Protein backbone atom coordinates (compact mmCIF):
# COMPACT_ATOMS: atom_id res chain seq x y z
CA UNK A 1 0.00 0.00 0.00
CA UNK A 2 1.36 3.42 -0.89
CA UNK A 3 2.15 5.80 1.95
CA UNK A 4 -0.46 8.28 0.74
CA UNK A 5 -3.15 5.58 0.71
CA UNK A 6 -2.15 4.39 4.17
CA UNK A 7 -2.21 7.94 5.48
CA UNK A 8 -5.60 8.53 3.87
CA UNK A 9 -6.98 5.62 5.86
CA UNK A 10 -5.30 6.64 9.09
CA UNK A 11 -6.76 10.13 8.81
CA UNK A 12 -10.16 8.78 7.71
CA UNK A 13 -10.44 11.19 4.82
CA UNK A 14 -13.74 11.60 3.01
CA UNK A 15 -14.36 12.25 -0.67
CA UNK A 16 -13.45 14.41 -2.45
CA UNK A 17 -10.43 14.83 -0.21
CA UNK A 18 -7.32 12.88 -1.00
CA UNK A 19 -3.66 13.02 -0.06
CA UNK A 20 -1.21 14.26 -2.65
CA UNK A 21 1.90 13.72 -0.57
CA UNK A 22 3.07 12.79 2.87
CA UNK A 23 6.22 13.91 4.64
CA UNK A 24 7.43 12.15 7.76
CA UNK A 25 9.99 14.08 9.80
CA UNK A 26 11.59 11.42 11.98
CA UNK A 27 13.82 13.92 13.79
CA UNK A 28 10.91 16.04 15.03
CA UNK A 29 8.43 13.14 15.00
CA UNK A 30 6.02 14.98 12.77
CA UNK A 31 3.76 13.77 10.00
CA UNK A 32 2.73 16.31 7.38
CA UNK A 33 -0.13 15.35 5.09
CA UNK A 34 -0.85 17.52 2.04
CA UNK A 35 -4.49 17.27 1.06
CA UNK A 36 -6.09 17.88 -2.27
CA UNK A 37 -9.57 17.67 -3.68
CA UNK A 38 -8.16 16.85 -7.08
CA UNK A 39 -9.90 19.86 -8.56
CA UNK A 40 -7.98 22.31 -10.67
CA UNK A 41 -7.91 25.82 -9.27
CA UNK A 42 -9.22 27.66 -12.27
CA UNK A 43 -7.93 31.17 -12.54
CA UNK A 44 -5.62 30.85 -9.57
CA UNK A 45 -1.94 30.11 -9.83
CA UNK A 46 -0.47 27.73 -7.22
CA UNK A 47 1.00 30.80 -5.51
CA UNK A 48 -2.39 32.43 -5.07
CA UNK A 49 -3.96 29.44 -3.35
CA UNK A 50 -4.57 29.88 0.35
CA UNK A 51 -2.66 27.07 1.96
CA UNK A 52 -3.78 26.39 5.50
CA UNK A 53 -1.83 24.40 8.04
CA UNK A 54 -3.61 22.82 10.99
CA UNK A 55 -2.42 20.62 13.82
CA UNK A 56 -4.40 17.38 13.91
CA UNK A 57 -4.73 14.47 16.31
CA UNK A 58 -1.47 12.56 16.64
CA UNK A 59 -0.83 9.46 14.53
CA UNK A 60 0.97 7.21 16.97
CA UNK A 61 3.84 9.17 18.50
CA UNK A 62 3.88 11.61 15.61
CA UNK A 63 2.40 15.08 15.77
CA UNK A 64 0.27 15.38 12.68
CA UNK A 65 -0.18 18.47 10.53
CA UNK A 66 -2.69 18.87 7.74
CA UNK A 67 -1.91 21.18 4.82
CA UNK A 68 -4.81 22.01 2.53
CA UNK A 69 -6.34 24.64 0.35
CA UNK A 70 -9.99 25.16 1.17
CA UNK A 71 -12.08 25.19 -2.00
CA UNK A 72 -13.92 28.45 -1.57
CA UNK A 73 -14.79 30.81 1.19
CA UNK A 74 -18.18 29.84 2.58
CA UNK A 75 -18.12 26.47 0.82
CA UNK A 76 -17.23 23.15 2.32
CA UNK A 77 -14.78 25.01 4.55
CA UNK A 78 -17.68 25.48 6.94
CA UNK A 79 -18.34 21.77 7.27
CA UNK A 80 -16.64 20.54 10.41
CA UNK A 81 -14.79 17.66 8.79
CA UNK A 82 -12.49 16.29 11.50
CA UNK A 83 -9.36 16.44 9.34
CA UNK A 84 -9.87 20.12 8.43
CA UNK A 85 -9.83 23.26 10.49
CA UNK A 86 -11.39 26.68 10.38
CA UNK A 87 -9.97 29.79 8.78
CA UNK A 88 -7.65 31.52 11.23
CA UNK A 89 -7.35 28.55 13.58
CA UNK A 90 -4.27 26.40 13.98
CA UNK A 91 -6.06 23.14 14.85
CA UNK A 92 -8.42 20.75 13.13
CA UNK A 93 -11.97 20.09 14.23
CA UNK A 94 -10.82 16.56 15.07
CA UNK A 95 -8.19 17.81 17.50
CA UNK A 96 -10.71 20.16 19.09
CA UNK A 97 -13.09 17.28 19.62
CA UNK A 98 -10.36 15.16 21.14
CA UNK A 99 -9.50 17.91 23.62
CA UNK A 100 -13.12 18.29 24.65
CA UNK A 101 -13.51 14.52 25.02
CA UNK A 102 -10.46 14.37 27.27
CA UNK A 103 -11.76 17.24 29.39
CA UNK A 104 -15.15 15.51 29.70
CA UNK A 105 -13.32 12.39 30.82
CA UNK A 106 -12.01 14.36 33.79
CA UNK A 107 -8.48 15.31 32.73
CA UNK A 108 -7.19 18.76 33.59
CA UNK A 109 -6.47 21.11 30.69
CA UNK A 110 -2.72 21.00 31.21
CA UNK A 111 -2.87 17.20 31.34
CA UNK A 112 -4.75 17.14 28.05
CA UNK A 113 -2.15 19.38 26.39
CA UNK A 114 0.68 17.23 27.72
CA UNK A 115 -1.06 14.06 26.59
CA UNK A 116 -1.70 15.32 23.07
CA UNK A 117 1.61 17.18 22.71
CA UNK A 118 -0.05 20.58 22.34
CA UNK A 119 2.36 23.49 22.74
CA UNK A 120 1.66 26.60 24.77
CA UNK A 121 0.51 28.67 21.76
CA UNK A 122 -1.97 26.13 20.51
CA UNK A 123 -3.09 25.46 24.08
CA UNK A 124 -4.01 29.11 24.54
CA UNK A 125 -5.84 29.24 21.22
CA UNK A 126 -7.92 26.17 22.06
CA UNK A 127 -8.55 27.37 25.60
CA UNK A 128 -9.80 30.68 24.26
CA UNK A 129 -12.10 28.92 21.79
CA UNK A 130 -13.60 26.76 24.53
CA UNK A 131 -14.12 29.82 26.74
CA UNK A 132 -15.86 31.59 23.87
CA UNK A 133 -18.19 28.62 23.40
CA UNK A 134 -16.84 27.84 19.94
CA UNK A 135 -16.62 24.07 20.56
CA UNK A 136 -19.86 22.13 20.26
CA UNK A 137 -20.50 20.08 23.35
CA UNK A 138 -17.96 21.88 25.52
CA UNK A 139 -20.52 23.74 27.63
CA UNK A 140 -20.17 26.03 30.60
CA UNK A 141 -18.98 23.23 32.85
CA UNK A 142 -15.74 22.81 30.95
CA UNK A 143 -15.21 26.55 30.81
CA UNK A 144 -15.57 26.73 34.58
CA UNK A 145 -13.33 23.70 35.01
CA UNK A 146 -10.57 25.36 33.00
CA UNK A 147 -10.98 28.69 34.76
CA UNK A 148 -10.24 26.90 38.00
CA UNK A 149 -6.90 25.80 36.59
CA UNK A 150 -5.13 29.05 37.28
CA UNK A 151 -1.70 27.48 36.97
CA UNK A 152 -1.84 27.95 33.21
CA UNK A 153 -1.33 31.66 33.83
CA UNK A 154 2.32 30.87 34.40
CA UNK A 155 2.73 29.72 30.82
CA UNK A 156 0.96 32.55 29.06
CA UNK A 157 2.64 32.87 25.67
CA UNK A 158 4.63 35.98 24.84
CA UNK A 159 3.71 35.97 21.16
CA UNK A 160 0.22 37.27 20.33
CA UNK A 161 -2.44 34.99 18.89
CA UNK A 162 -3.32 35.05 15.20
CA UNK A 163 -6.42 37.12 15.83
CA UNK A 164 -4.57 39.81 17.76
CA UNK A 165 -4.95 43.15 15.93
CA UNK A 166 -1.28 43.91 16.54
CA UNK A 167 -0.34 41.64 13.62
CA UNK A 168 -2.68 43.45 11.27
CA UNK A 169 -1.30 46.81 12.41
CA UNK A 170 2.25 45.59 11.93
CA UNK A 171 1.62 44.31 8.43
CA UNK A 172 -0.58 47.15 7.22
CA UNK A 173 1.81 49.78 8.56
CA UNK A 174 4.81 51.36 6.91
CA UNK A 175 6.26 52.29 10.27
CA UNK A 176 9.82 51.06 10.74
CA UNK A 177 10.20 47.72 12.45
CA UNK A 178 13.73 46.81 13.38
CA UNK A 179 14.35 43.13 12.69
CA UNK A 180 17.72 41.52 13.32
CA UNK A 181 17.29 38.28 11.39
CA UNK A 182 17.52 38.31 7.61
CA UNK A 183 14.61 35.89 7.27
CA UNK A 184 12.29 38.16 9.25
CA UNK A 185 13.35 41.26 7.30
CA UNK A 186 12.57 39.59 3.99
CA UNK A 187 9.35 38.02 5.25
CA UNK A 188 8.09 41.31 6.67
CA UNK A 189 9.01 43.24 3.53
CA UNK A 190 7.24 40.77 1.26
CA UNK A 191 4.19 40.53 3.52
CA UNK A 192 3.84 44.27 3.98
CA UNK A 193 4.13 44.76 0.24
CA UNK A 194 1.28 42.31 -0.39
CA UNK A 195 -0.90 43.03 2.61
CA UNK A 196 -2.61 46.25 1.64
CA UNK A 197 -3.57 44.80 -1.73
CA UNK A 198 -5.21 41.67 -0.33
CA UNK A 199 -8.95 41.74 -0.75
CA UNK A 200 -9.70 38.57 1.15
CA UNK A 201 -9.57 38.32 4.93
CA UNK A 202 -8.44 34.68 4.56
CA UNK A 203 -5.41 35.78 2.60
CA UNK A 204 -4.53 38.30 5.30
CA UNK A 205 -4.87 35.70 8.04
CA UNK A 206 -2.57 33.37 6.12
CA UNK A 207 0.07 36.12 5.96
CA UNK A 208 -0.35 36.80 9.68
CA UNK A 209 0.04 33.09 10.39
CA UNK A 210 3.31 32.96 8.45
CA UNK A 211 4.81 35.91 10.32
CA UNK A 212 3.58 34.55 13.64
CA UNK A 213 5.10 31.15 12.88
CA UNK A 214 8.44 32.85 12.32
CA UNK A 215 8.16 34.50 15.73
CA UNK A 216 7.25 31.22 17.42
CA UNK A 217 10.11 29.30 15.76
CA UNK A 218 12.68 31.93 16.67
CA UNK A 219 11.18 33.18 19.93
CA UNK A 220 14.48 32.93 21.82
CA UNK A 221 16.26 35.15 19.29
CA UNK A 222 13.51 37.73 18.93
CA UNK A 223 13.38 39.51 22.29
CA UNK A 224 13.73 42.97 20.72
CA UNK A 225 11.19 42.24 18.03
CA UNK A 226 8.62 40.90 20.52
CA UNK A 227 9.09 44.08 22.56
CA UNK A 228 8.43 46.11 19.41
CA UNK A 229 5.14 44.26 18.94
CA UNK A 230 4.08 45.61 22.32
CA UNK A 231 4.96 49.11 21.15
CA UNK A 232 2.83 48.63 18.05
CA UNK A 233 -0.03 47.51 20.24
CA UNK A 234 0.35 50.43 22.62
CA UNK A 235 0.47 52.92 19.76
CA UNK A 236 -2.59 51.35 18.24
CA UNK A 237 -4.54 51.42 21.48
CA UNK A 238 -3.49 55.02 22.11
CA UNK A 239 -4.80 55.95 18.69
CA UNK A 240 -1.46 57.20 17.45
CA UNK A 241 -1.21 54.49 14.87
CA UNK A 242 -1.88 55.63 11.34
Amino acid at each position, binding site marked *: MRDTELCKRLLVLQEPWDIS*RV*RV*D*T*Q*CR*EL*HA*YLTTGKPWFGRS*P*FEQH*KWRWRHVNVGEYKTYI*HATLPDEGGSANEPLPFLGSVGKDYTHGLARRVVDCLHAGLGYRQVCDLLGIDVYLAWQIRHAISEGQFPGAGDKLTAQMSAENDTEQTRPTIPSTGDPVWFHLLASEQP*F*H*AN*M*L*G*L*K*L*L*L*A*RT*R*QEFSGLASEDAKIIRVN*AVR*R*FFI*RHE*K*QLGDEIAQLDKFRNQSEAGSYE
Partner: protein
Amino acid sequence: MSDVSCGGLMTPDQAAALINSGGVLSIAGERELLLKLPKGNWIGGTTPYFVASQGGLCSRDYVYVQCLHGSGESIRTYDGDHLPHVLEDAPEQGYSIIILPAGSRVLEDYARYAPTYFDMYIKPIAGWVSGAHVDEIGQISAAVVDGSTGDLFTDRAVVLHVQLPEHESVTVHTINLFEAGDGPELEFSATGFSAKDCLINGQPGNLADTLQMSGIDSRWPLVADYCGALVNVSIQEVDQQARAVRFYAPVFEGVRYRFAKPVANYSESFLAAMPGEPGEVLFSCNCILNYLYSNLEGQRTGQMTGPITFGEVAYQLLNQTAVYLTLERD
Protein backbone atom coordinates in the same frame (compact mmCIF):
# COMPACT_ATOMS: atom_id res chain seq x y z
CA MET B 1 46.00 21.28 0.33
CA SER B 2 45.89 21.32 4.11
CA ASP B 3 43.42 19.82 6.55
CA VAL B 4 40.95 18.21 4.19
CA SER B 5 39.13 16.61 7.13
CA CYS B 6 36.94 19.71 7.51
CA GLY B 7 36.66 20.64 3.85
CA GLY B 8 38.29 23.30 1.74
CA LEU B 9 40.15 23.20 -1.54
CA MET B 10 41.32 19.69 -2.37
CA THR B 11 42.04 17.20 -5.10
CA PRO B 12 39.22 14.99 -6.40
CA ASP B 13 40.91 12.01 -4.70
CA GLN B 14 40.84 13.77 -1.35
CA ALA B 15 37.19 14.70 -1.91
CA ALA B 16 36.44 11.06 -2.80
CA ALA B 17 37.94 9.96 0.49
CA LEU B 18 35.70 12.41 2.37
CA ILE B 19 32.66 11.16 0.46
CA ASN B 20 33.56 7.55 1.21
CA SER B 21 33.93 8.38 4.89
CA GLY B 22 30.22 9.28 4.92
CA GLY B 23 30.54 13.07 5.05
CA VAL B 24 27.57 15.26 4.15
CA LEU B 25 29.09 17.58 1.59
CA SER B 26 28.51 20.44 -0.81
CA ILE B 27 31.12 20.34 -3.58
CA ALA B 28 32.02 22.88 -6.24
CA GLY B 29 34.25 22.28 -9.23
CA GLU B 30 34.53 21.64 -12.92
CA ARG B 31 32.03 19.24 -14.46
CA GLU B 32 34.61 16.55 -15.34
CA LEU B 33 35.94 16.53 -11.76
CA LEU B 34 32.47 16.26 -10.21
CA LEU B 35 31.56 13.36 -12.49
CA LYS B 36 34.62 11.42 -11.31
CA LEU B 37 33.56 11.53 -7.67
CA PRO B 38 31.99 8.46 -6.02
CA LYS B 39 28.34 8.32 -5.02
CA GLY B 40 27.52 9.51 -1.52
CA ASN B 41 25.86 12.16 0.60
CA TRP B 42 26.82 15.13 -1.48
CA ILE B 43 25.51 17.67 -3.91
CA GLY B 44 27.60 19.59 -6.39
CA GLY B 45 27.65 22.44 -8.84
CA THR B 46 29.97 23.63 -11.56
CA THR B 47 32.34 26.56 -11.11
CA PRO B 48 36.12 26.81 -11.48
CA TYR B 49 36.30 29.80 -9.12
CA PHE B 50 36.83 29.61 -5.38
CA VAL B 51 38.02 31.59 -2.44
CA ALA B 52 39.98 29.14 -0.32
CA SER B 53 41.83 29.75 2.93
CA GLN B 54 44.88 30.29 0.70
CA GLY B 55 43.05 33.03 -1.25
CA GLY B 56 40.93 33.40 -4.36
CA LEU B 57 41.77 31.27 -7.39
CA CYS B 58 40.47 29.76 -10.62
CA SER B 59 41.29 26.08 -10.88
CA ARG B 60 40.31 23.24 -13.16
CA ASP B 61 42.22 20.70 -11.06
CA TYR B 62 40.77 21.15 -7.60
CA VAL B 63 37.31 21.01 -6.08
CA TYR B 64 36.01 22.98 -3.12
CA VAL B 65 34.33 20.89 -0.43
CA GLN B 66 32.13 22.17 2.38
CA CYS B 67 31.37 19.70 5.16
CA LEU B 68 27.87 20.24 6.44
CA HIS B 69 26.69 19.54 9.94
CA GLY B 70 23.56 17.64 10.82
CA SER B 71 21.96 14.54 12.19
CA GLY B 72 20.24 13.32 9.03
CA GLU B 73 20.02 14.36 5.43
CA SER B 74 18.17 13.78 2.19
CA ILE B 75 19.05 14.80 -1.35
CA ARG B 76 16.40 15.71 -3.89
CA THR B 77 16.32 17.23 -7.32
CA TYR B 78 13.52 19.48 -8.53
CA ASP B 79 12.25 20.55 -11.90
CA GLY B 80 10.27 23.74 -12.27
CA ASP B 81 6.96 22.03 -11.54
CA HIS B 82 8.11 20.59 -8.22
CA LEU B 83 10.36 23.41 -7.04
CA PRO B 84 7.52 25.24 -5.23
CA HIS B 85 7.43 22.26 -2.82
CA VAL B 86 11.11 22.54 -1.92
CA LEU B 87 10.51 23.93 1.55
CA GLU B 88 7.66 21.55 2.24
CA ASP B 89 10.30 18.83 1.94
CA ALA B 90 12.68 20.68 4.26
CA PRO B 91 12.89 19.43 7.85
CA GLU B 92 11.11 21.34 10.59
CA GLN B 93 14.39 21.51 12.49
CA GLY B 94 17.30 21.98 10.11
CA TYR B 95 18.23 23.73 6.89
CA SER B 96 18.50 23.27 3.13
CA ILE B 97 21.33 23.93 0.68
CA ILE B 98 20.21 24.51 -2.90
CA ILE B 99 22.27 24.66 -6.12
CA LEU B 100 20.67 25.87 -9.37
CA PRO B 101 22.24 25.94 -12.83
CA ALA B 102 22.80 29.40 -14.35
CA GLY B 103 20.76 30.12 -17.46
CA SER B 104 18.19 27.41 -16.71
CA ARG B 105 14.44 27.69 -16.59
CA VAL B 106 14.43 26.29 -13.08
CA LEU B 107 16.66 29.17 -11.94
CA GLU B 108 14.33 31.66 -13.54
CA ASP B 109 11.39 30.04 -11.76
CA TYR B 110 13.17 30.14 -8.42
CA ALA B 111 14.24 33.75 -8.92
CA ARG B 112 10.71 34.87 -9.74
CA TYR B 113 8.60 32.76 -7.43
CA ALA B 114 10.69 31.66 -4.44
CA PRO B 115 9.40 34.57 -2.32
CA THR B 116 5.92 33.08 -2.68
CA TYR B 117 6.80 29.47 -1.80
CA PHE B 118 5.12 27.98 1.23
CA ASP B 119 7.40 28.23 4.31
CA MET B 120 9.77 30.64 2.52
CA TYR B 121 11.75 32.69 5.08
CA ILE B 122 10.49 30.41 7.86
CA LYS B 123 12.74 27.43 7.11
CA PRO B 124 16.38 28.37 6.38
CA ILE B 125 17.55 27.85 2.82
CA ALA B 126 20.82 29.06 1.30
CA GLY B 127 22.85 28.10 -1.73
CA TRP B 128 24.24 29.19 -5.02
CA VAL B 129 23.99 29.26 -8.79
CA SER B 130 26.45 27.10 -10.69
CA GLY B 131 28.19 28.42 -13.80
CA ALA B 132 31.26 28.07 -15.96
CA HIS B 133 34.55 29.77 -16.66
CA VAL B 134 33.76 33.30 -17.84
CA ASP B 135 35.52 32.59 -21.15
CA GLU B 136 33.15 29.68 -21.75
CA ILE B 137 29.83 31.24 -20.79
CA GLY B 138 27.39 30.46 -23.58
CA GLN B 139 29.45 27.50 -24.77
CA ILE B 140 29.19 25.20 -21.75
CA SER B 141 26.03 24.75 -19.72
CA ALA B 142 26.14 25.22 -15.99
CA ALA B 143 25.26 22.00 -14.16
CA VAL B 144 24.43 20.51 -10.78
CA VAL B 145 25.08 17.00 -9.53
CA ASP B 146 23.06 14.73 -7.27
CA GLY B 147 25.93 12.92 -5.56
CA SER B 148 23.66 10.17 -4.24
CA THR B 149 23.07 8.94 -7.80
CA GLY B 150 25.92 10.59 -9.70
CA ASP B 151 23.39 12.19 -12.06
CA LEU B 152 24.23 15.56 -13.61
CA PHE B 153 21.53 18.06 -14.55
CA THR B 154 21.45 21.31 -16.45
CA ASP B 155 17.72 21.86 -15.95
CA ARG B 156 17.03 20.84 -12.37
CA ALA B 157 17.91 22.18 -8.94
CA VAL B 158 19.60 19.90 -6.45
CA VAL B 159 18.85 20.32 -2.78
CA LEU B 160 20.39 18.86 0.35
CA HIS B 161 17.93 18.91 3.25
CA VAL B 162 19.75 18.54 6.56
CA GLN B 163 18.18 17.84 9.94
CA LEU B 164 19.55 19.26 13.17
CA PRO B 165 19.15 18.16 16.78
CA GLU B 166 16.67 20.13 18.88
CA HIS B 167 19.29 22.32 20.57
CA GLU B 168 20.84 23.49 17.28
CA SER B 169 19.72 25.86 14.55
CA VAL B 170 21.22 27.81 11.68
CA THR B 171 21.03 31.47 10.76
CA VAL B 172 21.30 32.79 7.21
CA HIS B 173 23.47 35.91 6.74
CA THR B 174 24.52 38.11 3.86
CA ILE B 175 27.39 40.51 3.30
CA ASN B 176 26.45 43.30 0.98
CA LEU B 177 28.91 46.00 0.09
CA PHE B 178 26.29 48.24 -1.40
CA GLU B 179 23.74 50.66 -0.09
CA ALA B 180 21.13 52.66 -1.91
CA GLY B 181 22.43 55.88 -3.42
CA ASP B 182 20.81 59.29 -3.51
CA GLY B 183 19.68 58.94 -7.11
CA PRO B 184 16.18 58.46 -8.42
CA GLU B 185 13.75 55.89 -7.09
CA LEU B 186 12.86 53.22 -9.64
CA GLU B 187 9.68 51.16 -9.82
CA PHE B 188 8.85 48.45 -12.34
CA SER B 189 5.42 47.53 -13.61
CA ALA B 190 6.23 43.82 -13.92
CA THR B 191 8.55 41.28 -12.35
CA GLY B 192 11.26 40.24 -14.79
CA PHE B 193 14.88 39.79 -15.75
CA SER B 194 14.84 42.77 -18.10
CA ALA B 195 13.27 46.19 -18.19
CA LYS B 196 12.78 49.03 -20.59
CA ASP B 197 10.35 51.59 -19.28
CA CYS B 198 9.81 52.09 -15.59
CA LEU B 199 8.80 54.80 -13.15
CA ILE B 200 11.73 57.05 -12.32
CA ASN B 201 10.87 59.18 -9.31
CA GLY B 202 7.26 58.48 -10.17
CA GLN B 203 7.58 59.64 -13.79
CA PRO B 204 7.62 57.30 -16.81
CA GLY B 205 11.10 56.91 -18.28
CA ASN B 206 13.51 54.49 -19.86
CA LEU B 207 16.05 52.76 -17.66
CA ALA B 208 18.73 52.28 -20.34
CA ASP B 209 18.49 55.95 -21.30
CA THR B 210 18.79 56.97 -17.65
CA LEU B 211 21.87 54.80 -17.17
CA GLN B 212 23.51 56.30 -20.23
CA MET B 213 22.61 59.91 -19.53
CA SER B 214 23.63 59.83 -15.88
CA GLY B 215 26.86 57.95 -16.56
CA ILE B 216 26.10 55.41 -13.85
CA ASP B 217 28.66 52.60 -13.67
CA SER B 218 26.76 49.42 -14.56
CA ARG B 219 29.03 47.44 -12.22
CA TRP B 220 26.95 48.88 -9.38
CA PRO B 221 23.65 47.05 -8.82
CA LEU B 222 20.17 48.32 -8.15
CA VAL B 223 19.47 48.14 -4.43
CA ALA B 224 16.14 47.62 -2.69
CA ASP B 225 15.50 47.96 1.03
CA TYR B 226 13.56 44.97 2.41
CA CYS B 227 12.82 46.17 5.96
CA GLY B 228 16.51 46.80 6.52
CA ALA B 229 17.89 43.99 4.37
CA LEU B 230 19.51 45.48 1.29
CA VAL B 231 18.95 43.28 -1.76
CA ASN B 232 20.92 43.81 -4.97
CA VAL B 233 19.91 43.23 -8.55
CA SER B 234 22.99 43.29 -10.78
CA ILE B 235 23.02 44.67 -14.28
CA GLN B 236 24.02 42.07 -16.87
CA GLU B 237 23.79 44.14 -20.02
CA VAL B 238 22.62 47.53 -21.23
CA ASP B 239 21.36 47.27 -24.79
CA GLN B 240 21.28 50.86 -26.02
CA GLN B 241 19.85 49.87 -29.37
CA ALA B 242 16.88 48.07 -27.85
CA ARG B 243 16.83 50.58 -24.96
CA ALA B 244 16.64 47.61 -22.58
CA VAL B 245 18.53 46.54 -19.47
CA ARG B 246 19.04 42.90 -18.57
CA PHE B 247 19.57 41.79 -14.97
CA TYR B 248 21.11 38.74 -13.28
CA ALA B 249 18.07 38.48 -11.00
CA PRO B 250 14.55 39.75 -11.48
CA VAL B 251 13.37 43.16 -10.46
CA PHE B 252 10.05 42.79 -8.66
CA GLU B 253 6.87 44.67 -9.28
CA GLY B 254 5.97 46.84 -6.33
CA VAL B 255 9.51 47.04 -4.94
CA ARG B 256 11.35 50.37 -4.97
CA TYR B 257 14.94 50.37 -6.16
CA ARG B 258 17.76 52.88 -6.33
CA PHE B 259 21.12 52.76 -7.99
CA ALA B 260 23.81 51.74 -5.51
CA LYS B 261 26.06 54.35 -4.00
CA PRO B 262 29.41 54.21 -5.82
CA VAL B 263 32.13 52.32 -3.96
CA ALA B 264 35.49 54.13 -4.01
CA ASN B 265 37.78 51.15 -3.68
CA TYR B 266 35.81 48.03 -4.41
CA SER B 267 38.54 45.63 -3.42
CA GLU B 268 39.41 47.27 -0.09
CA SER B 269 35.79 47.91 0.76
CA PHE B 270 34.85 44.34 0.11
CA LEU B 271 37.59 42.91 2.28
CA ALA B 272 36.73 45.40 5.02
CA ALA B 273 33.10 44.24 4.95
CA MET B 274 34.05 40.65 5.85
CA PRO B 275 32.91 39.88 9.40
CA GLY B 276 35.75 39.49 11.89
CA GLU B 277 34.07 36.87 14.02
CA PRO B 278 31.19 35.45 12.05
CA GLY B 279 30.61 32.50 14.39
CA GLU B 280 30.65 28.85 13.38
CA VAL B 281 30.33 29.06 9.60
CA LEU B 282 28.77 25.96 8.02
CA PHE B 283 28.57 27.18 4.46
CA SER B 284 29.45 30.27 2.46
CA CYS B 285 29.68 31.44 -1.12
CA ASN B 286 30.47 34.68 -2.87
CA CYS B 287 29.46 36.26 -6.15
CA ILE B 288 31.56 36.11 -9.32
CA LEU B 289 31.02 39.85 -9.75
CA ASN B 290 32.53 40.52 -6.32
CA TYR B 291 35.40 38.20 -7.30
CA LEU B 292 36.04 40.02 -10.57
CA TYR B 293 35.38 43.60 -9.49
CA SER B 294 37.23 43.18 -6.16
CA ASN B 295 40.14 41.35 -7.78
CA LEU B 296 39.76 38.62 -5.18
CA GLU B 297 42.21 36.32 -6.99
CA GLY B 298 45.02 35.68 -4.52
CA GLN B 299 43.24 37.59 -1.72
CA ARG B 300 41.99 36.06 1.51
CA THR B 301 38.54 36.64 3.00
CA GLY B 302 38.90 35.15 6.48
CA GLN B 303 36.34 32.45 7.26
CA MET B 304 34.29 33.44 4.21
CA THR B 305 35.64 30.74 1.93
CA GLY B 306 33.78 28.68 -0.63
CA PRO B 307 32.68 28.64 -4.24
CA ILE B 308 32.52 31.77 -6.34
CA THR B 309 29.08 31.71 -7.82
CA PHE B 310 26.79 33.06 -10.50
CA GLY B 311 24.02 34.05 -8.14
CA GLU B 312 23.56 33.50 -4.42
CA VAL B 313 20.62 32.21 -2.46
CA ALA B 314 19.80 33.52 0.98
CA TYR B 315 16.16 32.44 0.93
CA GLN B 316 15.65 34.22 -2.42
CA LEU B 317 18.07 34.79 -5.29
CA LEU B 318 20.55 37.59 -4.66
CA ASN B 319 23.33 39.23 -6.68
CA GLN B 320 26.73 40.66 -5.79
CA THR B 321 26.38 39.34 -2.27
CA ALA B 322 28.26 36.91 -0.07
CA VAL B 323 26.03 34.45 1.75
CA TYR B 324 26.87 32.36 4.78
CA LEU B 325 25.19 30.07 7.27
CA THR B 326 26.17 29.91 10.92
CA LEU B 327 25.38 27.17 13.40
CA GLU B 328 23.83 28.27 16.68
CA ARG B 329 23.70 26.11 19.79
CA ASP B 330 21.32 26.75 22.71
